[in-house]
């Protein structure tokens, strides 16, 4: 590679990324509502996104750059075990059909923009809501940080050194969100998917031209047989099944507790939009599966990561096998794929703070305008926090923190997900279960050692999210995802404490929701909003005539 090729790559990358950010700024004007100054508009896009926009937005916020970078990197490193992200992503779609439609309906009926508000209404406890909100924010922050780590990996491969390019990218992206709210990531996701589609086609062509998948898998098989690690291979090792299964299940459940996944769902305009999206979202899994297998292709092509950082495997592969201009497009796709979820996550974290902490404890009766203003500033703060985090600390640390984030957020599942079906749980029991689950999860993560391929212990604690059962004194080679064990402990506490509190006749909270709320649709009642209901009719066609409460607008 000559210096010129690098310059072409950097040029294409910079131009495309710049164009994207201009688009993000323009998003505020996209089907502009009379005012962006309410959380309904800024935080959930006026709940008016149709089938297509919702699909792009959900794809953009859930299939993050970290996924496109880290999953193939994991596959490159260990083989089959790294593929867990694919079945987990597939499972979430039919689950969303059952879970997210209920969430959408109850949020629509009551005007919630976060799941913490739902727990407050369902279990009648603002303390529990604040606990859920704080847990959500803590789990989301490192997730934003890993997006920036992915962007940093791309820049590292491009040979861009220093901290300023990353800082500039984050600055500009933050101001996009500050100005346009959820409309910015929504519009950017559409543009990103055009680049992603190009990338997928390029990968298919490339693999076909370089000997096909059989060559890639043959090469990988040889490498995995040659290396000393018992955990790596084209198939899961014996005893690796349980770890794989629990990781898939746990990650799939966690998706329904992560604040940012909910934001995209709530922005949909009716139940049918959520349902159609559940049917169409696995299309992204096909892309993810293909990208994941790039890990094998990289082995077959003899790609070596830059400076031993596995996250650079995919960018390095693009650099070595694509023509320079095409690699530039690929880098831009990954770059934007990092900025979109970072934006949605910071919006989600900001909404949690504004609705469940600011409005509940600091300024009861804050106006919609004030709520939007607070959320804007908090979203800015969230991104800068994440930036400072990765600039000051070892990036490796933020990836570990993200691992912990999944275990943390899983502990809100009883209140946020099971609560959709039952209000049997006592509010204090849920709070106790959440805290007990967090403590268990963190303790178990502390027990997990990190091992080098030859089995030597590199690091004694926080070495991964799967706990070897031998660590608990069991005679087994299997491992279990710590998040699921912690969730089980959490549930046992919730059930036991509920029975106890009921026996002691401690008053439970008052459920403010009605069974019919969980089936409410856009044609029935909704929150009052002055927004036009057609903010995306550009893409999705004019909205259908509405009856009921919306007909008046």
């Amino acid at each position, binding site marked *: 590679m000559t210096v010129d090729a690098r310059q072409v790559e950097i040029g294409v990358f910079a131009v495309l990324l710049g164009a994207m950010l201009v688009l993000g700024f323009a998003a505020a004007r996209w089907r502009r509502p009379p005012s962006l100054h309410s959380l309904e508009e800024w935080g959930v896009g006026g709940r008016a996104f149709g089938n297509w926009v919702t699909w792009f937005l959900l794809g953009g916020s859930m299939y993050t750059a970290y996924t496109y970078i880290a999953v193939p990197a994991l596959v490159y490193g260990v083989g*089959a075990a790294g593929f867990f992200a694919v079945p*987990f992503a597939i499972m979430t779609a*039919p689950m969303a*059909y059952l879970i997210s439609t209920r969430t959408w309906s109850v949020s629509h009926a009551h005007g919630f923009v976060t799941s913490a508000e739902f727990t407050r209404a369902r279990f009648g406890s603002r303390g529990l809501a604040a606990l859920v909100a704080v847990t959500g924010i803590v789990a989301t922050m490192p997730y934003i940080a890993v997006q920036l780590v992915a962007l940093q990996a791309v820049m590292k491969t491009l040979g861009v050194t220093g901290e300023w390019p990353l800082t500039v990218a984050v600055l500009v992206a933050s101001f996009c969100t500050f100005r346009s709210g959820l409309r910015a990531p929504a519009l950017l996701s559409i543009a990103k998917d055009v680049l992603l589609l190009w990338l997928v086609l390029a990968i298919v062509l490339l693999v076909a031209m370089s000997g096909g998948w*059989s060559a890639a898998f043959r090469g990988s098989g040889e490498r995995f047989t040659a290396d000393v690690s018992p955990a790596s291979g084209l198939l899961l090792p014996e005893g690796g099944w349980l770890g794989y299964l629990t990781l898939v299940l746990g990650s799939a459940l966690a998706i329904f507790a992560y604040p940012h996944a909910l934001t995209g769902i709530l922005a949909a305009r009716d139940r049918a939009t959520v349902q159609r999206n559940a*049917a169409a979202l*696995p299309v992204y899994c096909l892309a993810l599966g293909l990208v994941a297998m790039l890990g094998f292709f990289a082995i077959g092509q003899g790609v070596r990561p830059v400076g031993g950082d596995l996250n650079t495997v995919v960018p390095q592969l693009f650099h070595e096998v694509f023509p320079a201009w095409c690699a530039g497009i690929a880098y831009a796709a990954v770059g934007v794929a990092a900025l979109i979820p970072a934006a949605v996550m910071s919006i989600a974290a900001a909404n949690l703070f504004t609705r469940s902490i600011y409005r509940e404890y600091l300024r009861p009766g804050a106006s919609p305008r004030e709520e939007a203003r607070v959320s804007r500033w908090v979203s800015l703060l969230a991104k800068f926090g994440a930036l400072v985090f990765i600039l000051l600390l070892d990036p490796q640390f933020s990836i570990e923190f993200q691992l912990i984030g999944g275990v943390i957020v899983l502990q809100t599942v009883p209140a946020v997900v099971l609560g959709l079906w039952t209000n049997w749980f006592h509010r204090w029991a849920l709070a106790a279960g959440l805290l007990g689950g967090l403590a268990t999860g963190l303790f178990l993560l502390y027990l997990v050692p990190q091992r080098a391929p030859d089995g030597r212990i590199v690091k004694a604690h926080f070495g991964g999210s799967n706990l070897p059962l031998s660590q608990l004194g069991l005679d087994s080679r299997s491992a279990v995802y710590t998040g699921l064990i912690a969730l089980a402990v959490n549930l046992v506490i919730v059930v036991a404490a509920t029975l106890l509190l009921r026996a002691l006749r401690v008053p439970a909270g008052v459920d403010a929701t009605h069974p019919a709320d969980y089936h409410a649709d856009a044609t029935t009642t909704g929150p009052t909003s002055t927004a036009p209901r057609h903010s995306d009719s550009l893409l999705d066609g004019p909205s259908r005539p509405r009856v009921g409460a919306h007909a008046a607008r």
Partner: protein
Amino acid sequence: MPELGVRAQRRGWRWLLLIPILAPLPVGLYNRLEPQLWGVPFFYWYQIGCAVLAMAVTTLVHRLTRAGR
């Protein structure tokens, strides 16, 4: 209320969603190399195939439950 009965019957179709939810779980059954598809071991193409299954079943359920609304 016959209306509600019909709706409940239609909602029963949602049990079909268990198929794509459970399909990626029997790890022991698909943890194998053969048969290969375009050089890709069974382990990988089976799981990617689950995505197609999920799309088909979810679309079917959506059509069946919303028909006649």
